[in-house]
């Protein structure tokens, strides 16, 4: 059993993949680079010769994928938050790929708390920016004292709680799925992990990506009201 714990701890540690000038760049960042490069190349190839008339199967599929992804975020944000839909769509795409990349043998970047924390910080900045942009600075400050001035501290505390919750939810889900998968693979290396991977890697990963984007969109909508 001690062996299992040791193996688990080894897996859970995020090693620095490479060091440049004394700064350790973690594995998650490298995996993110790989994702970025692959998706960039893929999108460059896929969007190379798009046709207005008589699109091919590949183009139809691409258009379908892009419009449905944008449809998800635009549906969450509503008409007044359309300008932020592109960011949320890109985050959705990134999270989807990042959560699924465990299938290909990479460590999912979202298992590293740096990534989820970065996402959460960007989310809270975007949420508050949307609020300020919509209401103006004065009304934004006033909105902390709503509905009554007494709960203003709680509202201020929410600035921390919201991103923390977003960050921890994503991180915990991915980490939990990862740990369970590691355990299963430790016990039964062949066959069974594929079935569980269906749930923990694919289903749960996509759901969590959606939940993250959904909650960010919901908070933004709330901030814009």
């Amino acid at each position, binding site marked *: 059993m001690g062996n299992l714990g040791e193996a688990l701890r080894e897996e859970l540690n995020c090693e620095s993949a490479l060091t440049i000038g004394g700064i350790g760049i973690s594995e998650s960042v490298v995996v993110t680079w790989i994702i970025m490069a692959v998706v960039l190349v893929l999108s460059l190839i896929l969007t190379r010769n798009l046709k207005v008339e008589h699109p091919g199967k590949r183009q139809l599929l691409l258009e379908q994928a892009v419009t449905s992804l944008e449809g998800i975020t635009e549906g969450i944000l509503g008409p007044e938050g359309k300008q932020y839909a592109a960011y949320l769509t890109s985050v959705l795409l990134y999270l989807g790929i990042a959560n699924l990349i465990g299938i290909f043998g990479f460590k999912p970047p979202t298992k590293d708390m740096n990534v989820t924390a970065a996402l959460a910080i960007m989310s809270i900045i975007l949420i508050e920016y949307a609020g300020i942009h919509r209401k103006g600075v004065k009304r934004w400050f006033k909105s902390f004292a709503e509905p009554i001035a007494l709960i203003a501290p709680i509202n201020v505390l929410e600035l921390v709680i919201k991103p923390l*919750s977003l960050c921890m939810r994503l991180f915990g889900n991915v980490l939990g799925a990862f740990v369970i998968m590691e355990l299963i693979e430790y016990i039964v290396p062949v066959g069974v992990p594929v079935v569980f991977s269906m749930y923990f890697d694919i289903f749960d990963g996509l759901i969590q990506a*959606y939940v993250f984007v959904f909650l960010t969109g919901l908070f933004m909508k709330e901030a814009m009201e």
Partner: protein
Amino acid sequence: MNTTLIAIGAGIAVLTGIGAGVGIGIATSKATEAVARQPEAEGKITKLLLLGSALAEATAIYGFVIGLLIIILLS
């Protein structure tokens, strides 16, 4: 002694799963009722159920993270 306490602490932290389980159970039962009442809205209800379950599950996840933190940081 020390490891025993750590194990107990981690176990208590994981009890948050109870809340998540009850919550998801209630959500599912209501969703089933809703589908029985309005079978044509099944797609929408399924989406909402998945979303609600994912949100309710978060509490269990918090417990899990705390348990993990206790084990890793204290041992």
